[in-house]
């Protein structure tokens, strides 16, 4: 449905427009907020105080003109300049989105590994093991990120010292944040995959593979898994697309940079170009993630067409 570039563009335009206008509903006056952030105070401001800021950012132009300017910039690939950081929004996002995507990809990878191992081991076994398997899926799917993150941090970083508490950008620093993000996701994917997995296990081709002399584990991995992973792929696309929102708590606990934090700060400081820019780029990630999902879908199940 997003395969057409037109669809993708519509989504980007829609996201940008919705975000632009939604911010108009934010309380108070934008110039006041900008000034208050610069002083750390929260109070009303006099017109004299605000005049330079209004002039600087053209906040006195009619809103439609501002919108048209913004869209025009967007078409030229110019996302504008931050009201607070004075930097091009493109730079801000480039910096932060990368960090979030790295975390999201690592988290998704962790989720896949955990999910595949756990489902392969427990799906379609004795009722007791099956109950254990799906029970754990449900349990971890409901783990609050903060809770899980801080638990991992205290146990593995502080007490055992296996990983750093405040990481930088080395791979080891990514382990705990990725697990924090990945474990609940693994639970989610597990719930969906398990059903499919057990369904696929009962298909005649599985029996037919056994009749060729295949081993149980071999059949699970080489035949059954492939039939079961489609919902997990969808969830992966979703997780990638929603990384900005999903990772914000993890990033905060492990004090990593990230687009979510930037978004939170930008909404708080009414930094409209940053907010809109982030949303446009996040939507772009979403669109790309969906295109990838479609491609992977077709790789896994060639029966699926357009």
């Amino acid at each position, binding site marked *: 449905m997003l395969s057409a570039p037109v669809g993708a563009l519509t989504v980007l335009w829609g996201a940008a427009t919705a975000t632009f206008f939604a911010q108009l509903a934010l309380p108070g006056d934008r110039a006041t907020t900008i000034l208050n952030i610069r002083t750390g105070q929260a109070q009303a401001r006099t017109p004299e105080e605000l005049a330079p800021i209004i002039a600087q950012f053209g906040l006195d132009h009619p809103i439609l003109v501002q919108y048209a300017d913004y869209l025009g910039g967007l078409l030229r690939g110019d996302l504008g300049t931050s009201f607070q950081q004075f930097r091009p929004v493109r730079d801000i996002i480039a910096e932060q989105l990368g960090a979030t995507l790295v975390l999201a990809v690592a988290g998704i990878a962790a989720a896949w590994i955990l999910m595949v191992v756990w489902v392969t081991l427990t799906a379609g076994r004795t009722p007791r093991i099956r109950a254990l398997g799906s029970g754990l899926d449900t349990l971890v799917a409901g783990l609050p990120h903060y809770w899980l993150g801080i638990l991992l941090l205290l146990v593995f970083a502080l007490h055992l010292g296996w990983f750093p508490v405040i990481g930088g950008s080395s791979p080891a620093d990514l382990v705990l944040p990725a697990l924090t993000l990945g474990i609940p996701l693994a639970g989610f994917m597990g719930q969906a995959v398990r059903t499919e997995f057990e369904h696929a296990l009962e298909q005649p081709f599985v029996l037919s593979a056994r009749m*060729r002399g295949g081993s149980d584990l071999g059949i699970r991995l080489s035949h059954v898994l492939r039939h079961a992973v489609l919902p997990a792929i969808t969830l992966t696309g979703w997780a990638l697309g929603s990384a900005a929102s999903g990772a914000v708590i993890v990033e905060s606990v492990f004090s990593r940079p990230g687009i979510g934090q930037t978004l939170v700060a930008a909404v708080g400081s009414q930094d409209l170009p940053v907010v809109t820019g982030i949303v446009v780029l996040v939507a772009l990630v979403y669109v790309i993630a969906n295109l990838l999902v479609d491609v992977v879908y077709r790789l896994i199940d060639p029966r699926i067409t357009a």
Partner: protein
Amino acid sequence: MTLTAQETASAVIPDADAVRLSVRGLDVGFTGRDGRTRSIVRDVSFDLRAGRCVAIVGESGSGKSVTARTLVGLTGEGAVVDAAELTLGDVDLASATRAEWRGIRGRRIGFIQQDALVSLDPLRRVGSEIAEALRLHRRGRRAHRRRRVLDLLTSVEVPLPERRARQRPGELSGGLRQRALIASAIALDPEVVIADEPTTALDVTVQAQVLALLEDMKAHGSAILLISHDLSVVAHLADEILVMRAGDVLEHGTTSEVLRAPRHPYTRALISAVPGAHTRGRRLAPQQEPAPDPHRVRPDTAGDGPVVQARGLVKRFRGGLLAVDDVSFDVHRGETLGIVGESGSGKSTTARLVLALEKADAGEVRLLGHAWSTASERARRSLRRRVGVVHQDPLSSFDPRWSTERILQDAIGADAGGRSARDRRVRDLLAQVALPESVRTRHPLTLSGGQRQRIAIARALATSPEIIVLDEAVSALDVSVQAQILDLLGDLQREYGLSYLFISHDLGVIHHMSDRVLVMKDGVVVEQGDADRIFLHPAHPYTRELIGSLTTLENPDDNGGAS
């Protein structure tokens, strides 16, 4: 079967008639959830010899597949297997370990599963499915395996093997899929081949090819266990026949003994229930009187004219496929029009056009003298109850949330009067299609294919229609039940003057039922006429080919030339 030189060499049977697999006193049961063991198969004994074929026949659920699966140690979860003897050559299967079983499966025993169309992994290439057996048993390197796959596909007469090996099962027709499955089962030249219903759901032409293939394998020294519920199929291949019912072996003898001089009444019933040319106008099941339907009145035959009038129907699907091309026919009151043709020839599409479930690109259908295909759906709605339909895929035609009872009540609708009248009607309908009361509360999903098909028929009858479109309505039934249903349809027609549009790929059924026959190929009607005329004096070459490949019971001696 074209064989490579190497295979021809190995095909020289070292010791013909040697016992490959021996079964004595096999009992199988399943332990249920309540912990009680239910006996499924009792006291089955037979020997599979090189170059010979043993067939097991019997109605659905009689334990044929269970017996077969037991021979490869895959009876199923909760199975309890007991046998006085169960040996494969020198191996005692009764004490085989998991690893030993894995070594036996595929290498010494090739198994062609019952559900051929879904027994290949739909996501993997056909080539790798076939190569899997080689890979699992470590036969050769990748390149060698690939060559072997192509040889195998060639040997099972798959055209363009290079291309087919790269395709996925879904891209292959049923017949090709069945052959690919056979190729994967015989990849390692197993000494024993088990073929469970290898021809069900195949067109007659393809069915004949598959049987020929098995015949060839037999000729090259394989010991074959053939399983079928269709006596006419086994008649040509088997040397010995076991007749099973409800887990018991009723009769065991050579093919000609069993077919010529059946000892057990069940076997006799089975033979006589096979529809065909010789059964036309006869009841197939020996029993009961025709059951009159009290809910029906005989329609007045005044205003005769065709009840269905189809003119120049054309249907083109997206992608340009011409599924139905200029099809015209009439169905008269009290008449059965049969439609035969290979898979994909446009039979179902024609039926759907007649039912106005699909919009024709050209042409018109008139129904009971009314404008039909050109009318609005609103206008059609009032007429719809006078046309019944049995869909080709009954399961998907039932709302999965609904029980049998609710499905039938929904079809009966308000016109059957009060609640108790409706309940009675449901019970009568179930009785008519020979279903037990107990299925009332069951969901179609939990019923067997045959039972589902009968519910679909009951639903079609529920509105007391004057015309019924039956698309493969009896294909999932075993002969005895099929006989009952065909008898029922015949009775209703005689009694109330119903008209049928009867679609089947089973020529015997068509010949048994139809007054007139329409032969379709690639969306075109190649021949149309009186049933006997078509079957006895086919005019079109395609019809001739079709009828030529028909296997019938009438010549049981004419079995494969191996022995």
